[in-house]
């Protein structure tokens, strides 16, 4: 077997040194009747070429984003990732190292985390950021748990503009922990009056912007309302690129920002691995979940970096930890950070402008189709359209024509009376021809 360095001779010598006659002797602690003796119903080993063939067969059964006009978003975005990013994250020393528990021989990972934390803080305009969580949804759940610890209150108020999967995740966690999570009804046009629900038992309000339907929301008033009642505002985002052009959480006095970082540096990957971004006000530092990297010096006085404040974490604090997270999204955060380093302010801003412009152009093209309405007043690169008839059917028909034309809102919010809505995203990867193809396919789907 190509991955196993030991050969028969090695094994024999090693057994001899150990002083047992066979490898099975090493498994003597397994109750005899529980030892596997039968052959398992699994295929025989495959050569590399055979594995490639089998997996290529499966891959070829999927329609890849790059191969068709593609307009799906809803929390995961198809952006162009520079070739350099994937090259660099595949460096052995990044790819195959563990969590940097031995800082003297992990300065590369540590400095990259320190830079990532600084970038995330700058991007969100928050004071501090951690070294990443699993994804945007679990980051949101962690933010809620953190708000509960800080406020010592139970209730979380979830905006109707929050991504339904995020809301679901928060609700599941809350339910399990015996806490309260109140989700407002789907709020397609950002019309809800969330502040009205904040009371003295409210730990936090959770509001997304750009929201699930693509609307931009000004969180400043909600922040004020929260703070007036001693609650925290958790600002959520699913499209990090928007922060190049849109007012960031910190500028609206959010207490915690939780978001999805996939859209910088990372591919769609059918939903994972993704990247949870997590930032907060400095005063809440000790309640942060996840790893933190800090600056220090070495014995020669040189700057260096270490994981720090780990007394918050499960491996020290166990059942009292701020979170159970251990393995996080290290490599995805590195990809994010490299992409952002390549972009810089200038590039990010330009990228965000292109996304916005392409979405505006698309909105205009779609709105021009008889019967189609764009529901958003404001948006970044994603918006909601209302069509005559079923969104699901239209999307399926377009897929049949080779256009991946958005997500039917009913897929995430079934039985909500929103069956005629489609969520549509445009990014820098879409050409004018793609947008035209989409408009054509939608027209076709509606007319048949």
């Amino acid at each position: 077997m190509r991955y196993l360095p030991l050969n028969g001779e090695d094994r024999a010598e090693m057994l001899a040194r150990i002083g047992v006659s066979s490898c099975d002797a090493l498994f003597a602690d397994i109750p005899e009747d529980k030892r596997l003796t039968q052959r398992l119903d699994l295929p025989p080993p495959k050569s590399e070429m055979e594995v490639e063939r089998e997996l290529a067969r499966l891959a070829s059964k999927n329609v890849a984003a790059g191969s068709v006009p593609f307009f799906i978003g809803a929390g995961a975005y198809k952006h162009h990732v520079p070739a350099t990013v994937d090259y660099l994250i595949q460096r052995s020393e990044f790819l195959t190292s563990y969590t940097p528990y031995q800082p003297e021989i992990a300065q590369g990972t540590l400095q990259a985390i320190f830079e990532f934390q600084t970038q995330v803080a700058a991007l969100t305009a928050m004071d501090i950021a951690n070294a990443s969580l699993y994804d945007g949804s679990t980051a949101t759940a962690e933010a809620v748990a953190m708000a509960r610890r800080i406020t010592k209150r139970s209730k979380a108020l979830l905006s109707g503009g929050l991504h339904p999967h995020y809301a679901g995740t928060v609700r599941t966690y809350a339910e399990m922990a015996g806490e309260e999570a109140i989700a407002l009804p789907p709020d397609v046009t950002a019309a809800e009056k969330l502040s009205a629900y904040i009371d003295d038992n409210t730990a936090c309000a959770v509001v997304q912007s750009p929201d699930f339907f693509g609307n931009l929301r000004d969180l400043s008033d909600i922040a004020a309302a929260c703070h007036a009642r001693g609650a925290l505002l958790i600002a959520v985002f699913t499209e990090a690129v928007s922060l190049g052009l849109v007012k960031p959480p910190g500028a609206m006095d959010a207490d915690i920002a939780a978001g999805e970082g996939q859209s910088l540096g990372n591919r769609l990957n059918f939903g994972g691995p993704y990247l949870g971004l997590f930032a907060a006000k400095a005063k809440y530092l000790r309640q942060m979940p996840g790893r933190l990297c800090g600056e220090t010096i070495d014995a020669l006085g040189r700057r260096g970096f270490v994981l720090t404040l780990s007394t918050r974490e499960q491996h020290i604090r166990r059942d009292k930890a701020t979170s159970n997270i251990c393995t996080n999204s290290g490599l995805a955060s590195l990809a994010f950070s490299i992409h952002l380093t390549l972009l810089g302010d200038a590039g990010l801003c330009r990228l965000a402008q292109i996304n916005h412009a392409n979405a505006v152009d698309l909105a205009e093209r779609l709105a021009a189709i008889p019967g189609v309405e764009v529901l958003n007043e404001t948006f970044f690169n994603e918006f909601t359209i209302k069509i005559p008839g079923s969104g699901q059917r239209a999307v399926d028909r377009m897929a049949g024509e080779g256009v991946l034309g958005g997500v039917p809102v009913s897929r995430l919010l079934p039985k909500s009376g929103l069956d005629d809505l489609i969520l549509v995203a445009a990014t820098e990867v879409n050409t004018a021809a793609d947008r035209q193809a989409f408009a054509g396919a939608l027209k076709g789907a509606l007319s048949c």
Partner: protein
Amino acid sequence: MLMRQGQFPKASEAAAKEAKTFTGNRGLDIEEGLIFETGRPENTGVDLAEPLPVMPRLGALKRKEPAGLPGLSEPEAVRHYVRLSRMNYSIDAGIFPLGSCTMKHNPRLNEAMARLQGFADIHPLQPESTVQGALELMAELSRWLMVLTGMDAVALAPRAGAHGEACGLMIIKAAIAAKGEAQSRNVVLVPESAHGTNPASATSTGFEVRPVPARSSGTLDPAEVKKRLGPEVAAIMLTNPNTCGLFEKDTVEIASMVHAAGAYFYCDGANFNAIMGKARPGDLGADAMHINLHKTFSTPHGGGGPGAGPVVLSSRLAPFAPVPFVRREGDAFRLVEHCSEAPQASGRIAAFHGQMGTFVRALAYMLSHGAEGLRQAAEDAVLSANYVRVSLKDVMSGPYTGQVCMHEALFDESWLAPAGLTAFDFAKAMIDEGFHPMTVYFPLVTHGAMLIEPTESESKASLDLFIAALRDLALAAKRGDRARFAGAPRHAPRCRLDETRAARHPVLKWTKPQPA
């Protein structure tokens, strides 16, 4: 996992002088500033077309203050990250014997497969008809996991081991609730040697943790478990093989006790590498177990993540698996995404459907080995750990060095005490010799633990060199050669780092230096 801080010695003047060059570089060891020091916000390493001229639709929410993010041209960025990378140790460069971490070889085939356009460029919310291959892959991965563990269902959603633990406990909670015992059963038994995520997961899912001590031979005593069982107990979380590297030989008895008490048996499967193909947790009575694909099934750790922690389930717990999951309908595969279709499901634990990128890698690994190869890998892992154990036990002490271990060998620092040295010192001296240290100070039950997990990926020559070096270090320690340890590491990109300072005065991001 390094659990404790060591001393922070100031290096000698002489050493400082020796290291000095004008640039601070030393040959191929090149110092590198922060991007905030070298980059500029007006620079960029990405060329982008002009945006279309449109009427913006941002309302009043345009960003006013730029983020202040520095940009680097592509050559500068490449150099920055290549230089940083060169400051890291990696499996690709040497043995990485972190106990409990299963740092095995990460095949590059898997990386190539995960990057196939048909896997990497598909969106989780595409119409199901356009992702049949992806769903088939998830179904196939599930099949492998079920057959290998002897379990009946799999929840693929968990992002890592800890997430899997929480997922498993949520499932158990849902099952208990379905029996009407939601209020009464809220205690989880957790052995003291358990990984920190176990108690943390229990708390975060609303359980109370009740510790169980191990007996002197390192495994759990059924009697101790029995004492702690009761109608309030929802589950036991048992790591098997456990974090001392021992197989819990009474697991079957414990499982039946637990079941008899109306509770569930959660198995922490982080150490499944030791027994895959040799025994099935399902046969041992487990109801739920997470598997760290980023350990057992070779997906890379990436300096901290990402991973994937699928949870295999017994038939009793299967109905309570969270959404989404894949269902086969005739020749087609479907995703069940809502509890409306799975009324007993324990909700949703994250967005979308799981760590597809990790699934591809893990399945590539499984297909490459076949069941036979996986068994051989487990045997080699255990063989290698025992080889290390017997080769070091005369010079290093440890609580169980006299008995057979599974995939990892546990030593402790007591033998270093006479020399005034600690496991921490020993670890740092290993760095100078070109090795990543073992896990130190975990498990907590062993004072000054040093936990060595070589995995099956090391050649005998590699093990022999590792053993010889550790013996040399051990003899040096016993000889009282304190200098070799106190100053270590000498040859790494950094000498010992002041962790106390980092924690006392946290500097968690770069800030513009104030002009003096």
